């Protein structure tokens, strides 16, 4: 395909768009990994939400 005399502008536009989209995807992926790691670390140290700490209610069984 011949992009003509302005090929540099066309290719440049697509390259910049690709870099920005890739940066967004990397940002979201890396952030997810970081938050998952932080939550796992807190859980390992026994720091959990109150709802997670509370044992489930057991209904006393009657004979």
């Amino acid at each position, binding site marked *: 395909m011949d*992009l003509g005399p302005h090929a540099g502008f066309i290719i440049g536009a697509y390259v*910049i768009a690709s870099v*920005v989209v890739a940066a967004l995807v990397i940002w979201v992926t890396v952030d997810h990994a970081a938050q998952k790691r932080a939550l796992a670390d807190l859980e390992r140290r026994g720091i959990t939400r109150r709802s997670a700490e509370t044992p489930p209610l057991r209904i006393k069984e009657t004979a």
Partner: protein
Amino acid sequence: MALIDLANPTRFVTLVERVLPWLVAATFVAFAYGLYGAYWAPDDYQQGATVKIMFIHVPNAWLSMFVWGAMSVAALGTLVWRHPLADVAAKCAAPLGAAFTFLALVTGSLWGRPMWGTYWVWDARLTSVLVLFIMYLVLIALWRTVDDPSRAGRAAAVLTLVGAVNLPIIKFSVDWWNTLHQPASVFRMGGSTVDRSMLIPLAVMAVAFTLLFITLHLAAMRNEIMRRRVRTLMLTQAERA
């Protein structure tokens, strides 16, 4: 799952985990189809091959305004309905909106140089979009400055609603003032002036970028919910110590 259930962050995260792989696949397919169409689309009789920049410039320009519109709805959710996920949605949309606006400006500039003979002019359309980009950066800075997410969310919501005034200015700037930028050629009275051979790939690329936004937005919202959970747990731990 009822709509009201989405107000529960845990249920929302579960739903996001479930739909995210499908959204990623749909985004890939849409981009593959859109880029294939853009590659084979004919050159414009006046602009030649530079018209190919349109397939990324126009979707990003649309999204730059759409994201601010979505943030304005979220701002109403924060201030009026006090929806627990509204400020999460707004906060996570801002960096994406800034990126789309940046791309609209840069690709427009690269399209303008060979067509207009200049990268930039201070006309109404370009300047109002630059103002939109700066407003996105201000919002991001505001969220980073205020430590308490709910206080930051309310301040950002007010700023977002004030900034929404800029949206009709951007849209109608080409009609109200004399600008180098061409008037609307897709969404206009009397129908689109763009030929079908270019309009279809343009529409597919618009769908692809919109799917990309939805995918990244949902993933970023999930991350933000996790970040707030980490923050709450650390504060709880500090209180106990």
